[in-house]
């Protein structure tokens, strides 16, 4: 394990922010800390980096107990949501900072910084100041700066949170490729489940200061441990007292075993997919179907359809 956090407790004043949190991050993995705002993700990341002291619990990095170690001795790379660029330094000096602190020879620093500039596609910006870069460029600079010292683990706190949707998507894919190239154990915080599923190979769901579930994206999406995780990881709808993913709902024209009758209220086309809003008795539900199926069933407001969870559908009883 590259990182092990064991039974971490942390409170700010009277508010408990982390409660008995235990997380394991395998070496070389790309792990997402996923959860709603205020769930304690940043705090956990900061505890791992040493920027925050836990009230109790242990942090191990590469097998060594670092709980009482100052951040500068933990050999972690940390990337802040708002970049934390050194404003008075050029891009080159920002990236060189950690190496200069370690008193590496000048020509070695020069070589390493230029490798990193190339890696993050900022070669032509070496002499600029952070204020002269776009948000995405600043974030890549921050990433290069953290990577420069060859950290044991890389910790990213909502690395793309301050960027617009398009840049976010690009950087996401780029981070995944970068991780495949560099292979440094990486933990990144996000509250965007799509981002976590797309980029990470392990997801830890953190909410209300507790770990709700951890596992591969596939596991947490398909076998959510509880209602919260199921709701947080993707769209859900309620069918006969059970939570179902809308794309797992089967719609038929005729009644089938286990199906219920529903009245179509609205049909919304979203590109290739169609969102069907229905009324079942006194409950609302919705299903996501292909356009082909919607046309075959001639779905229209007022029509009657029969719905049931599909054969492979994962459902969860509502408590």
């Amino acid at each position, binding site marked *: 394990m590259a990182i092990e956090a064991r039974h971490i407790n942390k409170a700010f004043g009277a508010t408990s922010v982390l409660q008995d949190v235990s997380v394991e991050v395998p070496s070389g993995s790309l792990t997402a800390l996923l959860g709603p705002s205020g769930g304690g993700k940043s705090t956990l990341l900061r505890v791992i980096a040493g920027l925050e002291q836990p009230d109790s619990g242990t942090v191990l990095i590469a097998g060594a107990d670092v709980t009482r170690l100052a951040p500068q001795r933990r050999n*972690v790379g940390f990337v802040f949501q708002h970049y934390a660029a050194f404003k008075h330094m050029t891009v080159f000096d920002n990236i060189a900072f950690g190496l200069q602190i370690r008193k590496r020879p000048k020509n070695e620093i020069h070589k390493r910084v230029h490798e990193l500039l190339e890696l993050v596609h900022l070669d032509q910006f070496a002499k600029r100041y952070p204020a002269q870069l776009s948000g995405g460029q600043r974030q890549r600079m921050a990433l290069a700066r*953290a990577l420069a010292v060859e950290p044991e683990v890389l910790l990213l706190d909502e690395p793309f949170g301050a960027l617009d949707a398009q840049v976010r998507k690009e950087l996401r894919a780029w981070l995944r490729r970068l991780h495949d190239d560099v292979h440094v154990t990486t933990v990144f915080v996000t509250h965007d489940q799509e981002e976590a599923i797309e980029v990470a190979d392990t997801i830890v769901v953190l909410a209300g200061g507790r770990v709700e579930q951890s596992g591969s994206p596939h596991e947490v999406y398909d076998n959510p441990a509880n209602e919260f995780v199921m709701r947080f990881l993707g769209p859900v709808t309620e069918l006969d007292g059970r939570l179902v993913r809308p794309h797992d709902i089967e719609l038929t024209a005729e009644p089938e075993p286990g199906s219920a009758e529903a009245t179509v209220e609205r049909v919304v086309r979203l590109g290739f997919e169609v969102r069907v809003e229905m009324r079942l008795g006194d409950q609302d539900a919705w299903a996501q179907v292909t356009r082909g199926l919607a046309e075959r069933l001639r779905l229209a407001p007022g029509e009657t359809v029969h719905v049931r969870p599909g054969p492979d559908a994962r459902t969860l009883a509502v408590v």
Partner: protein
Amino acid sequence: MAERSGVTGPSVVSKYVLRVVVLAYLLFLLVLPVVLIGWKTFQHGLGPFFDALTTHEALHAFQVTFIVALWAVALNTVFGVGTAILLVRHRFPGKRILNAVIDLPLAVSPVVVGLALILVYGRFSSFGGWLEDHGIKIIFSTPGMVLATVFVALPLVVRAVVPVLEEMGDEQEQAAQTLGAGRWQTFRRITVPGIRSALAYGIVLCLARALGEYGAVAVVSGRLVGQTQTLTLYVEERFQNFEQPAAFAAATALALIAIVSLLVIKLLQRKAD
């Protein structure tokens, strides 16, 4: 066009009235006295001016003023930056009280400051007496004058640096730490460059205040001519003794130093923006 002048007419009048009032106010308060001092100083040319400033007493007063000012600026810079960091980056009981106490010197009359220092460090207080027995003289000598000047200029560096530190936030410092920088390295390489302009601004303000201080220094120095006499005390003393050329020359020198400081401040402000 007619409509517009109809609308703006009254406001144009009030604008001119305001201008005249402000200019007259500044004229009588600021410009006239300063110009008159300058005229008095230079009415017989530059020669007498330099002669007046190069007497033994005048040169000594310059020397005392600069020694006191440099010590006061050095102490207030170190203390000011330390206090600003304490106030912005740390949480501790009594923080609000400290924050309020810092501004006290702005409210307390310098004469009161001087008297208070004499009460603590004077020969007839127990602490002052003890120091004197060990050969350390505070009152009526340079240390006391430095203390008085430090006191009156106390808030200037703190108040210049605090808002910039707040605005800067602590993420850059934390980033430096995760990159391996210790406390001192972080301070020197991240914090100081971040507050540089504000710090320079505070230092210049502090210097100007220290050079011009009169009341507190007058009380603690004992006004010993040729020993503890600063430039401001020198001006006062010469004036009382009807040596107007010397008084005006020194006063003009003080005013010139103040104007240069002001220019430096303006330059720094522009650079900071």
